[in-house]
């Protein structure tokens, strides 16, 4: 009788002991991953998606490296090292492939095993996660602005954008139109998007890094058309956003709205997302339209100085980003629908990436800080579009 009363307590006790025992004998085989997950859970709101997405993509690459110890044993070989690459959503496939390539290269050159963990979510959310303590070695985000935010907190040294070639952007992309097969609404250029009855799908520039490229491309077009008349440009983008029936919070959300739910006539998308959609869903469903002018989207990369110094991973972290510029890596980049920087590779993939005039964030918009302040900050041009009474 007495024993029965105590049963739930015993069960609880047994459960606690059991879970402690499991933890102690390495139920979680991956301590750094564990640490990463727990630091994630400290972040407020939205960041929980990062821990879920942290994949161990390169584990299979490391498993077969134990076999050949005899060949070219470099003297500097030390214990295995692990990197965390914090990136944004659409680069998942690219880095899954690149990490294998880099791990093999590093093993051969330095006889050291390197495992790279990936973390993917919205670019801004990822940047906040790093600011809030996610121990990233490198960040590969959608906009310089998001890396600037980390640099402002002192985690990355100023002048990070000059550390690697091409503005620290090993690959570029641009903004294109994805339309339904046969282009029933006859959309050829930006000015077709403000016609009545055309539904445009784009995410919200206030919540999505990709959408900021979309918006700036439209703004740049309107400025060129109207001899830099800002009022006309404002009228243009405001007309464009009046044609937007759904303002998703992220780029993948917008792609889903357009592609899966069949809403809208045209999707403003990253070129790599558009090419991926066409490849995944069949060329019989969608066409890609290149407008007369677009914007050069430069997703930059940076080493998180504070973190690599603490962990002693600077050499491998810098090599990881440097290697992105080599021919092998650039081919991989192109195969994943990003525009390669290396000319020799770009020529091979010339068919995939048509040449169009592109605006540049630094030359045409005075850099991210200024563009952000003018267009996307509270009370900026984008807010004015949705101000009451307009």
């Amino acid at each position: 009788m007495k024993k029965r009363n105590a049963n739930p307590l015993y069960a609880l006790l047994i459960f606690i002991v059991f879970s402690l025992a499991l933890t102690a004998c390495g139920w979680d085989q991956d301590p750094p991953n564990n640490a990463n997950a727990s630091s994630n859970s400290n972040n407020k709101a939205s960041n929980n998606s990062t821990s879920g997405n942290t994949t161990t993509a390169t584990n299979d690459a490391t498993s077969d490296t134990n076999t050949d110890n005899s060949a070219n044993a470099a003297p500097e070989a030390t214990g295995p090292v692990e990197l965390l690459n914090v990136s944004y959503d659409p680069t998942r496939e690219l880095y899954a492939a690149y990490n294998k390539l880099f791990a093999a290269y590093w093993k051969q050159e330095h006889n050291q095993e390197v495992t790279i963990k990936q973390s993917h979510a919205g670019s801004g959310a990822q940047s906040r996660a790093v600011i809030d303590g996610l121990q990233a070695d490198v960040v590969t985000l959608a906009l310089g602005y998001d890396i600037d935010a980390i640099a402002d907190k002192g985690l990355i040294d100023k002048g990070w954008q000059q550390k690697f070639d091409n503005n620290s952007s090993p690959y570029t992309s641009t903004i294109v139109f994805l339309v339904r097969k046969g282009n029933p609404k006859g959309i050829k250029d930006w000015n077709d998007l403000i016609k009545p009855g055309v539904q445009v799908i784009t995410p919200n520039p206030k919540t999505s890094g990709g959408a900021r490229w979309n918006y700036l491309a439209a703004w740049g077009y309107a400025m060129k058309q109207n001899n830099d008349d800002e009022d006309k440009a404002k009228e243009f983008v405001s007309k464009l956003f009046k044609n937007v029936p759904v303002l998703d919070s992220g780029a993948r959300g917008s792609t889903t709205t357009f592609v899966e739910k069949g809403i809208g006539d045209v999707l403003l998308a990253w070129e790599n997302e558009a090419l991926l959609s066409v490849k995944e869903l069949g060329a019989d469903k969608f066409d890609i339209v290149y407008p007369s002018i677009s914007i050069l989207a430069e997703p930059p990369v940076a080493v998180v100085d504070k973190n690599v110094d603490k962990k002693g991973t600077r050499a491998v972290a810098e090599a990881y980003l440097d290697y992105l510029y080599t021919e092998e890596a650039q081919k991989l980049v192109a195969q994943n629908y990003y525009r390669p920087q290396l000319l020799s590779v770009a020529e091979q993939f010339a068919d995939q990436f048509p040449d169009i005039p592109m605006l540049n964030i630094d030359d045409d918009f005075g850099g991210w800080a200024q563009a952000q302040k003018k267009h996307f900050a509270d009370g900026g041009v984008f807010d004015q579009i949705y101000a009451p009474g307009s």
Partner: protein
Amino acid sequence: MKSSTTKRTKPRSVLPGFGLSLGFTIFYLSVLVIIPLAGIFVKTSGLTPEQFWHTVSNPRVIASYKVSFLTSFYAALANLVFGLIIAWVLVRYRFPGKKLIDSLIDMPFALPTAVAGISLTAIYAPNGWVGKLVEPLGLKIAFTPLGITLALIFIGLPFVVRTVQPVLQDLDNEVEEAAVMLGAFRLRTFRRVILPELIPALLTGFALAFARGIGEYGSVVFISGNMPMKTEIAPLLIMTKLEQYDYKGATAIAMVMLIVSFILLLLINYLQWRSNRRVVTA
């Protein structure tokens, strides 16, 4: 001695004593609720009163409060009515598949809200399964406040059903029979005998569903269309502020929502307490 006699007569508790459990309760609540909430107030205090007012009284922010609170209210109201009917059917009748329906009620709790949001949108979008049928009637569901309400009804449903069900189950049949014997029929029995017993539970369910709706983000963000001034919910504006690294602005909006929902919940609790007392004294 006096104290020893009282100690002996006090019934021994099954779990460890009051001191330990209260200590645990306060520690647990502090770590999980009070400290994080206090963090909101601390972060917001970085703003001057003017900045704070400017942030929280922005027309777009006000519009989003309206969307959030009104759709949550309507959704909770719908759940109040239909949750009661569902609970009633589940308690009072026997039919094949009852166990299945009973377990279906809890599904909205288990389903990731984003999944719920995406599937609701797929069904109610203008070219979706249901959306296609109602569009010729001039009715748009997805990407309107109606769609948001629908998502909130979905996630709030279990609250009313699960709070009313046990009360209904415990209701004495004899009281009802007595009422009928005394000449009260159907509607009157329900209104004068059953409903007063249910009101506290109904109010609890309503409050829970309402509170859940106000803070809901995952399921709404897909079906709302997020159009500023029209279907933008307050939690999305908080995310928007965070995305611009404006932590203070985000917490300012969060604080206003917290205060308003706290007042509303207090009000509902007060009503519940009053109706509870009326039942006891009547």
